[in-house]
């Protein structure tokens, strides 16, 4: 896998805003990768689309954790809400994918807005536990409401119409892949603009020094509510995508392990860099896939060992490591 030699972010503090939001050549190179992957790994398209979906989900957490500093151990709540929203719509006849995604985003955003008031206060541990509590209660609720959600057996009868009425989902996962990838790219592009906007900068300000932000006229709570809502909407879209590409919703979309794994992936990739979310997902899911393929029973051991090694020798995640390498390459020149 070729990686961008240096990140957008490293240059940020030193150069004017305009430069920071400009696309780095390495970024163009990065986005060529998934297109290449289509031709190289044509038999693994369903894995690739699930990586794209997980990357979008991870991006949503990066928005709230990496940029606003809100840790969450219950982000699957919004993923699940989006997944069920898209699934229930499709089940009851509104199977248009784009409509489904819009609905997933809207409903997840509403859920995010309502719960955002719970995470405004408190330490990291408090926020972790409140978000976790909300997600677990949603999980239990969906589990009990079997008539509505299908409970643990999963929601069936999800029939998704062809995208734009032209491209229907196929067994090989070609449509699913291009669709997931396109959505990921558009959402990424939007997120990128967002974090480089004054709004995004004020979020970083909040993360770095909550006390000072009101002094320069930035409403802290308002900004946090806004970004939490946006993050939830992103997660909702990811959930909706998963539903549409698999045409099934399992209760697992709301599970604690999904939230925990997400946090793990993001920290592994590196927070607050957007690309950290994408690369973390790629690395983690690929490693997971290969290890579990080689050793279905004990692969977890190797995954765990890899995590321990990463923390011991590559703090700041993969992106941090890349950045270090990047500066080492570029600086002397």
């Amino acid at each position, binding site marked *: 896998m070729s990686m961008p030699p240096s990140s957008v972010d490293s240059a940020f503090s030193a150069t004017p805003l305009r430069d920071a939001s400009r696309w780095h050549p390495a970024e163009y190179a990065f986005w060529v990768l998934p297109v290449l992957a289509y031709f190289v790994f044509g038999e693994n398209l369903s894995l690739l689309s699930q990586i794209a979906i997980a990357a979008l989900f991870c991006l949503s957490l990066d928005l709230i954790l990496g940029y606003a500093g809100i840790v969450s151990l219950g982000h699957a709540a919004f993923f699940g809400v989006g997944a069920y929203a898209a699934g229930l719509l499709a089940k009851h006849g509104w199977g248009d994918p784009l409509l489904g995604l819009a609905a997933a985003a809207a409903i997840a955003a509403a859920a995010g807005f309502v719960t955002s008031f719970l995470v405004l206060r408190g*330490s990291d*541990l408090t926020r972790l536990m*409140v978000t976790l509590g909300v997600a677990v209660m949603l999980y239990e609720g969906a589990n009990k409401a079997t008539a509505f959600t299908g409970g643990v057996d999963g929601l069936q009868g999800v029939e998704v119409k062809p995208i734009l009425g032209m491209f229907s989902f196929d067994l090989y996962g070609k449509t699913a892949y291009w669709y997931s990838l396109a959505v990921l790219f558009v959402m990424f592009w939007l997120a990128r603009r967002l974090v480089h906007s004054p709004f995004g900068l004020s979020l970083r300000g909040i993360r770095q020094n909550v006390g000072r932000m009101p002094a320069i006229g930035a409403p802290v709570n308002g900004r946090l509510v806004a970004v939490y809502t946006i993050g939830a909407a992103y997660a909702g879209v990811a959930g909706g995508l998963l539903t549409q590409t698999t045409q099934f919703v399992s209760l697992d979309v709301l599970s604690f392990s999904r939230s*925990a794994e997400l946090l793990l992936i993001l*920290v592994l990739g590196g*927070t607050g860099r957007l690309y950290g979310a994408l690369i973390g997902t790629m690395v983690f899911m690929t490693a997971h896939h290969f290890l579990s393929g080689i050793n279905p029973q*004990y692969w977890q051991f190797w995954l*765990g060992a890899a*995590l321990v090694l990463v923390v*011991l020798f590559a703090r700041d995640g993969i992106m941090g490591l890349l950045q270090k390498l990047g500066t080492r390459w570029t600086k002397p020149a």
Partner: protein
Amino acid sequence: MTVVFDGIASGLLLFLISVGLSVTLGLMNFVNLAHGSFAMLGGYICVILLNRHGMPFLAALPIVTLASALAGVVLERTLYRRLYGASHLDQVLFSIGLVFMSISTAHYFFGAQQQPLQLPPMLSGQFNLPGVDIGVYRLFLIVVGLSIAVALQWMITSTRFGAQLRAAVDNPRAARGLGIDVDRVFVLTFALGSALAGLGGALGVEMLGLDPEFPVKYIVYFLIVVAVGGSGNIKGSLYASLIIGICDVAGKYYVPQIGAFVIYAVMVVTLIFRPQGLFGRSAAK
């Protein structure tokens, strides 16, 4: 009445399995999500001693505690100490890595099935007082739990070691300057946390079962107790466990429809009104 008794017992079980985490997370400010792995280790050692070596349950408990402490020391010296200065998120990543490894290891040696544990007759059964049925093992848990809580609280607030520990956590540099051997304090405290985790795991097998998934299955409960109680606070963990235990049992008895939600609802509501936990220091970082 029986409901209250069961609630207290349930609460103290929660306390016993999570008090080790109160020590590492609360006192040492290390997010050790692998706490459950130490508990699982204690559980497996206990089961092996009982089933393969025919040791009596009560005799096995001290050995379990010591063995877990030893495992704690080894891991602290080799791995954990490198991460005291790291961010919480790095600690999470690291300890989750350990959890994964411990699950696979347990799976490899013991298989995926539940492990059997037979309590001695003197600890099983139930006796009846007017208006309340008392399970012997539950009573045992209550006694052990309360003794540990009292002993820990005393150790932290009233002994020289407790003072050194608080100093070492709050400001390691200054503590070092005062001649406190911070390294030693940390290794001992970590050993204490692991020992308590192991003991809690062994005591919990009877009611919680034991399989390789143990560390992730109950992680949420450990964290709830510490968060609601407020970190850095043994008393807080005890009260939090009791409140959660009683609410949980009473909720399930009177309104079983919402049984699954009680614990989480109690937690979220508490944290909304007291973000630092019941007894948290408001100046916590």
